[in-house]
């Protein structure tokens, strides 16, 4: 009678561990994908949605690492005594947690639109890459003039520069 109770208790604990593993993974998923979803292009955004996106994105690097650690601990606990299909399930569940932890450290907008950290410039008379009818953003500061062709700006969106001694960001 007593022995049966012990088995029941251990089973319950194992079930709880399984449940925890699923919840931890779901939380990591939420912290990574809800912020990305809230600021997805071609959707309408609200101020509240943007605030949520910022908060979740801010916490996601920490939360996903905690989630990964907890998932490893739970897997180690569950591994012994798990049947082969249980072990496969654990591996299948664990792999995405590491992907989430990695994704939380990425800027997927910069995958789509590569930044331009090493911007190079040509003299006004030595350009073969801008047509006369192409639009440029033009700035003149303290006598120094720079132009940023819009066809390039529409891709990079941000170019940091120093013009006439003033650090600026051309944005389009």
């Amino acid at each position, binding site marked *: 009678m007593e022995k049966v109770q012990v088995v029941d208790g251990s089973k319950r604990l194992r079930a709880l561990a399984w449940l925890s593993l699923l919840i931890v993974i779901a939380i990591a998923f939420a912290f990574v994908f809800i912020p990305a979803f809230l600021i*997805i292009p071609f959707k309408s955004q609200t101020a509240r949605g943007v605030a949520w996106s910022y908060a979740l994105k801010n916490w996601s690097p920490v939360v996903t690492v905690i989630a990964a650690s907890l998932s490893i601990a739970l897997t180690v606990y569950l591994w012994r005594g798990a049947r082969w299909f249980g072990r496969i399930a654990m591996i299948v569940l664990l792999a995405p947690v590491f992907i989430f932890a990695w994704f939380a450290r990425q800027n997927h907008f910069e995958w789509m639109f590569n930044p331009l950290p090493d911007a190079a410039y040509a003299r006004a008379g030595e350009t073969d890459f801008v047509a006369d009818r192409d639009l*440029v953003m033009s700035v003149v500061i303290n006598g120094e003039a*720079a*132009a940023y*062709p819009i066809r390039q700006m529409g891709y990079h969106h941000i170019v940091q520069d120093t013009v006439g001694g003033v650090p600026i960001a051309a*944005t389009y």
Partner: protein
Amino acid sequence: MWETTVNGRKLKFHLAGINNQNFIMRDEETGSWWQQVSGEAIQGPMKGAKLNPVFHDELSFAVWKREQPGGRVLKPNPRVAPKYESADWEEKYEKLRVVTPVDAADKLAPRALIIGVKLNGEARAYPVRTLEKQSPILDELGGVPLLIVLGEDRKSVRVFERSVEGRALEFFIKPDSQPLQLIDAETATTWDFTGKAVSGPLAGKQLKRVALLKDYWFDWKIYNPKTSVFTLGERDLSPSDQPTIKKGADGRE
């Protein structure tokens, strides 16, 4: 275009997201989020801070080269050059859909291009189509007499305060001028597209430049909900190559 120094600290910006089809920038130093079109920090430790705007122009390369022969031009990055916008990007973008609610009372299409001007708390949108019909437009905004003029390339736009020593002047395009020149009705002085008086009684004077934002109507309205829209009165529909002198008081909404 923005200065990147805020409270003595130089910030480095990254593309970080989209908010109603205008992008969000994130600075490396504080992690705050900034709205590109307004230069305002909308989330994070810098929330509420504003970047200083940098006065700039949107010009055709032909006009820019003429005015700034000693300038420098951003080179394409060969690694990503195939992803740059095509020459007909403007037409393509006009066809993109808009996701924010559209006001049924609006006379302008959401993707209509406008020249947005803000002065003394007042905002007004000048539809590019209107400017193509009539240039220059003489107007008054926030108590300031304005001159809005389209370059000879039919693409570059500039806005000026059209008063000299407290006197508002009326301008018209000098017929067949190439590059484009303007003449004021009061003194017959000739002015160039940079707002400089090149010959005549006021030679040497410089009209004060006014910042403008070329934008889509839907985006301008999100950030300037009280904006008015400039419209032409019927009698103002004169061909743009004819001298057109009109008071700013009429033709406004």
